[in-house]
């Protein structure tokens, strides 16, 4: 391992001396790996400083652009899942470990609903999305009523226990209904192509579509929060629960709406992500922890913070996998630890 790393360094350095504009080595084009949930590319260089600098030089503009787009798409997708989590967390005070399961449910909906919708309504990608979101709102509404409505008075840890139980139940129901195989989901035809970037690289349209959907939703959320009466109530609720209640706002209904919305956004994220991430058991758990990281970095209850934090994480994770693959997994946590030691309440503290 070490030997090959030294060789790469020397080799690359020699090449740079001869001709700085030489096309990048074949090896430095990162292979598209299926190992990462969102197809993040895996590099081959080791974590030593010389290689790090060298890699930055040889990474040409197109590759860099592609990595940026990947980072943006990953970050925005994370934001979708994390925004629901931070809302539920900040407003209702519920530590919802089952939030990753909603993402998983969404992905499986994209897999399972598409044939059903095709059979009854004659298909349609957006029809599937719409039905999935409606089902998700219903699911969130019922879940809040059945499992959470009596927990607000209890300690946080009781909610943790409850949501842990829910994770187990969701995972096992998934196993009973769909089985434990990994499934692929095909994107719709009109989004299946690739855009050419430069001479030899292409970028899949569907990934751009994901970013577009996430951006649209982020804007919609911003509008709802800052411009509507509901958003006002939600913001007020996250600042001072008792005060909102004493002003005559039905806090129970508000909670139910927030929870249902959070579930729906997570499910939508899962459905949209399914074609690039494929659908596999335990996919919710890996997302869950990263989303908690996003939530605490951004500051609990802060949508703005969640957006910034998820973009940051997307950037660090994507480029970490290219530039420092050996340490890629840990980078996110190092980032979180550093930020929280610097700002113990996250970047934007809400309420």
């Amino acid at each position: 391992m070490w030997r090959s790393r030294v060789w790469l360094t020397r080799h690359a350095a020699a090449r740079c001396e001869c001709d700085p504009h030489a096309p990048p080595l074949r090896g430095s084009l990162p292979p598209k790996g299926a190992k990462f949930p969102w197809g993040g590319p895996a590099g081959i260089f080791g974590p030593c400083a010389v290689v790090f600098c060298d890699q930055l030089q040889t990474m040409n503009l197109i590759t860099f652009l592609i990595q940026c787009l990947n980072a943006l798409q990953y970050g925005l997708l994370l934001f979708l899942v994390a925004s629901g989590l931070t809302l539920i967390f900040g407003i209702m005070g519920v530590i919802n470990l089952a939030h990753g399961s909603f993402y998983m449910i969404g992905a499986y909906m994209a897999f399972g609903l598409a044939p059903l919708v095709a059979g009854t309504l004659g298909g349609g990608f957006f029809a599937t999305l719409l039905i999935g979101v409606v089902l998700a709102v219903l699911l969130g509404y019922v879940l809040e009523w059945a499992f959470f409505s009596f927990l607000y008075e209890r300690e946080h840890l009781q909610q943790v226990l409850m949501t842990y139980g829910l994770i187990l139940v969701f995972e096992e129901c998934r196993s009973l209904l769909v089985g434990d195989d990994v499934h692929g989901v095909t994107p719709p035809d009109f989004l299946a192509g690739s855009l050419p970037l430069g001479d030899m690289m292409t970028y899949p349209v569907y990934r751009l579509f994901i970013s577009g959907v996430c951006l649209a939703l982020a804007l919609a959320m911003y509008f709802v929060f800052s411009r509507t009466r509901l958003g006002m109530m939600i913001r007020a609720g996250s600042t001072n629960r008792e005060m909102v209640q004493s002003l005559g706002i039905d806090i129970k209904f508000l909670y139910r709406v927030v929870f249902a919305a959070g579930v729906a956004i997570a499910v939508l994220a899962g459905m949209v992500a399914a074609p690039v991430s494929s659908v596999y058991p335990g996919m919710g758990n890996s997302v869950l922890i990263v989303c908690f990281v996003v939530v605490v970095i951004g500051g609990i209850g802060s949508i703005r913070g969640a957006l910034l934090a998820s973009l940051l994480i997307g950037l660090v994770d994507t480029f970490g996998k290219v530039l420092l693959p050996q340490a890629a997994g840990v980078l996110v946590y190092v980032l979180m630890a550093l930020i929280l030691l610097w700002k113990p309440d996250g970047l934007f503290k809400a309420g």
Partner: protein
Amino acid sequence: MNQFRYLFVFLVFAGLAVFPFFSGQYGVDLATKIMVMALFALSLELLVGGTGLVCFGHAAFFGIGAYATVLLSPSDGPGSVLWLLVASVLAAALYALVVGALSLRTKGVYFIMVTLAFAQMAYYVVHDTPLGGGTDGIYLLMKPVLGDVLDLDKANALYGFTLACLAASFGFLALLGRSRFGRALAGIRVNEQRMRATGFSTYPYKLAAFVISGAMAGLAGFLFAVKDGTVNPELISWHLSGEVLIMIILGGIGHLRGALIGAFAFALLQEFFKSEVVFGEFAKHWHLGLGLTIIASVALLPRGLVGVPAQIRERLLGVSSAKGGDDESV
């Protein structure tokens, strides 16, 4: 009420002491495993129930204890119990000192996540470097011995040793809870602001509790490594941190015996739902039964399993017993 509590704990330990005489090999193995987890849960209970610090990276100390045991064992013969035990406990305590010193700057959920972050760092160190042997982990070839007195390769000897460690730790934590130090921790749990106003510098107290707790988790890790004879990165993963947290919540936070009860209940429930004798083909979906049981227990038992007798009493007599105060430490 007080006497019953001590009687209960005494009966549990007495029952565990005579258990190997009535049970087969499988029972002894299972009980050893559960006792190790109970010791691990006890160590976390000192933080969560005793000090009010929810640590979501406790598996790091457990795993470091286990890895230290395996890495420091000599390859040409059995290591010494004494030296390996001290070394693994110290390794875990040292990491706890570093993690605690940094993460105690934060509070609440942020503290939960920072401890998770440090555990994940330890996870990636053993997972991605040659030191930890990657995903497969490392094997402990020769189990440690203590002269001719104790050979931990024998299941019954390991059982006895684990029970002794568990009982000693329980006694230590019970005494700690009654000491001035333990009272200060309880004060920090209830109202840290007020403790500071009374003139306590709370940071060293919390740090000390964190290190003690980490060291105890390291002890559990040592026992686990010796019992299994192998370590892998799963011992540091957040799943294990979550599981042990679930155990003490299930048992009932704020009581040492809650950690014991929770660990036993969780492990036995797992075994029950996994058993093919009861569920046949459906046993492979054991998560479902476990999850539903956990949900039901949250809905029906607001004070955890520890609170069940009090709940029954209230139901029968129609009186509400006094809220558990500081005396409820055992």
